[in-house]
């Protein structure tokens, strides 16, 4: 499993498509079944190596492989889908049943049947997908001159058309988007389903004996990946001519069933059954961002819930407990020591920080920090060159700027602006303080008496004859 695997995930599986049947002396080929679809979400407890299997598409007449994740077998897995069955004489392959899978959601479409008289093959069933069951393949009715059946559309799509009293093949079923089924052969060949739609391939016509159209891949997972449509049935011909039988169209990736082959005019040039599409596993997860423990890492970028030591140039965002960090950026609720040039935002208890910048609101304790910038509720000791704003207790500071409510002592060159309460300063040199400037006293005019201005002092220190001015 990837290192950033998390329990936020979805795992989807599609079984391999069953192979269409190759015609034989008794039967034209029927269509193979489409693979089933299973899904699970938020699978927990994974790690290390996980055992899985992606089912292969069945060869002509063979069943598609089962697809599963996290287990040695389908039944022992966390999620898995059944493959579509291969077609046999007079019977289309069954689609992979949701109920036979693990966390099965939708079933694959059944292959179209070509039984009895027709010379043409049945269409393959479409694979199930996130949007629904796969469409069933069409099959020629029991009329020798009916065209081949169209392939079924993918999960959520429509069934392939079964020709009835017409030499032309049946159209392929549309994909889950409501379009894309391949056009039937009307004498010039059958069309494939439209790429990306999951449409089924068109069926071949009687007489011309073209091959059936291939199914088209779906696009539910991204632009080119999804459940596949079934292949169209191959065209065939009665005896008396020299045209070979058409092959069944291939089932598309992922999980489409193959179309059945047509019957030849003579000999054993049987129309070959189309192969089924391969299965698939689609894993989607949200990368983990938490509960990581890193030691001795350089230039770490971490997001939350991190316990670290000896990290240089870390960037962290929350719930960190680092130590010995140089040049970190940290978000909140941190306990750190011996950091250089940190930027911290809240609730930090720090020691021995150099050039700290902190601005969140409360309860930080500092010792031995140089040139910090701090905002509130900070207890400092032996700090140089700091600027602080509120509720600060300082000692042994130099070159500081403080704004309010600052008890301090032994400060050099302080500039303090507010002394609204409980400020204690001692031993300050070159202090500049301007808050609480002495205002002029206001005296009532009735309580201000003015000297009449008479000369009353006759002598001062050193005067011998003050009246003579000596």
């Amino acid at each position, binding site marked *: 499993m990837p290192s950033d695997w998390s329990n936020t995930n979805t795992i989807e599986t599609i079984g391999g498509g069953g192979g269409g049947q190759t015609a034989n002396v008794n039967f034209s080929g029927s269509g193979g079944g489409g693979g089933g679809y299973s899904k699970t979400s938020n699978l927990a407890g994974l790690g290390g190596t996980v055992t899985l299997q992606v089912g292969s598409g069945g060869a002509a007449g063979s069943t598609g492989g089962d697809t599963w994740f996290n287990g040695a077998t389908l039944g022992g897995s966390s999620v898995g889908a059944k493959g579509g069955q291969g077609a046999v004489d007079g019977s289309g392959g069954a689609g992979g049943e949701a109920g036979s899978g693990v966390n099965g959601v939708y079933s694959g479409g059944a292959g179209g049947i070509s039984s009895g008289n027709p010379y043409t093959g049945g269409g393959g069933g479409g694979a199930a997908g996130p949007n629904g069951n796969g469409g069933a393949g069409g099959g020629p009715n029991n009329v020798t001159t009916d065209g081949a059946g169209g392939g079924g559309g993918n999960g959520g799509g429509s069934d392939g058309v079964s020709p009835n009293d017409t030499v032309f093949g049946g159209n392929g079923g549309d994909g889950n988007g409501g379009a894309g089924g391949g056009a039937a052969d009307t004498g010039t060949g059958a069309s494939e389903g439209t790429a990306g739609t999951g449409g089924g391939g068109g069926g071949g016509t009687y007489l011309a004996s073209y091959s059936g159209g291939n199914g088209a891949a779906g696009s539910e997972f991204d632009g080119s990946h999804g459940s596949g449509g079934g292949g169209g049935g191959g065209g065939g011909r009665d005896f008396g001519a020299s045209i070979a039988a058409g092959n069944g169209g291939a089932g598309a990736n992922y999980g489409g069933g193959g179309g059945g082959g047509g019957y030849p005019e003579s000999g054993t040039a049987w129309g070959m059954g189309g192969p089924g599409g391969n299965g698939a596993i689609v894993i989607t997860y949200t990368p983990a961002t938490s509960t990581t423990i890193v030691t001795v890492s350089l230039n770490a970028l971490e997001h939350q819930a991190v316990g670290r030591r000896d990290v240089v140039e870390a960037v962290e965002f929350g719930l960190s407990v680092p130590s010995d960090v140089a040049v970190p950026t940290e978000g909140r609720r941190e306990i750190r020591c011996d950091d250089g040039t940190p930027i911290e935002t809240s609730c930090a208890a720090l020691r021995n920080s150099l050039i700290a910048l902190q601005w969140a609101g409360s309860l930080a304790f500092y010792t031995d920090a140089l040139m910090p910038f701090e905002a509130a509720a900070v207890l400092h000791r032996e700090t140089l060159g700091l600027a602080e704003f509120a509720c600060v207790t300082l000692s042994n500071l130099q070159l500081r700027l403080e704004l309010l409510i600052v008890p301090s002592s032994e400060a050099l060159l302080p500039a303090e602006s507010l002394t609204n309460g409980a400020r204690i300063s001692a031993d300050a040199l070159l202090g500049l303080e301007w808050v609480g400037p002495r205002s002029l006293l206001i005296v009532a005019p009735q*309580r201000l008496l003015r000297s009449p201005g008479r000369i*009353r002092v006759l002598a001062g220190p050193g005067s011998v004859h003050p009246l003579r001015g000596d």
Partner: protein
Amino acid sequence: MRGLAVFIRSEVIEVFAMRITTPFAPIEIGEADLFAFDFTPDVGAATIVSTSWNCALGPYETAIDPTPQSRVFSVSPQTAIQVRSPMDGSLQTRTGAFSVGLIGGMPASAAGGNYVLEATANLSDGRVLKLNSTVQCKLPGP
């Protein structure tokens, strides 16, 4: 005016206590307010470097204040004060040489008595000036 001769070594410093005949506005029991003497006409080019106040009940007063000096809460020299104009109530700044004392806390037993408030101003040129006046202590109310 009466002269008080103070001998310090062989030098003579004449210190006069000037009584200002105008009394201060009466002070009520429990009141505290700023009182000021304006020494500006006397200081000339000198400044007041320190000041002190003395508070005592006047002679022959029957009112009782066992600790009249304790009515002087604080004193300070000022080079400017503000006086509220009796005309329009606005504050007017006056500059000069003032000795300001915060006086108050007279006991009820002193009601009706007259205190003598005396400010001493020590000038930068060595002179020592004194001004005093009286203030009546009265019960609260008109």
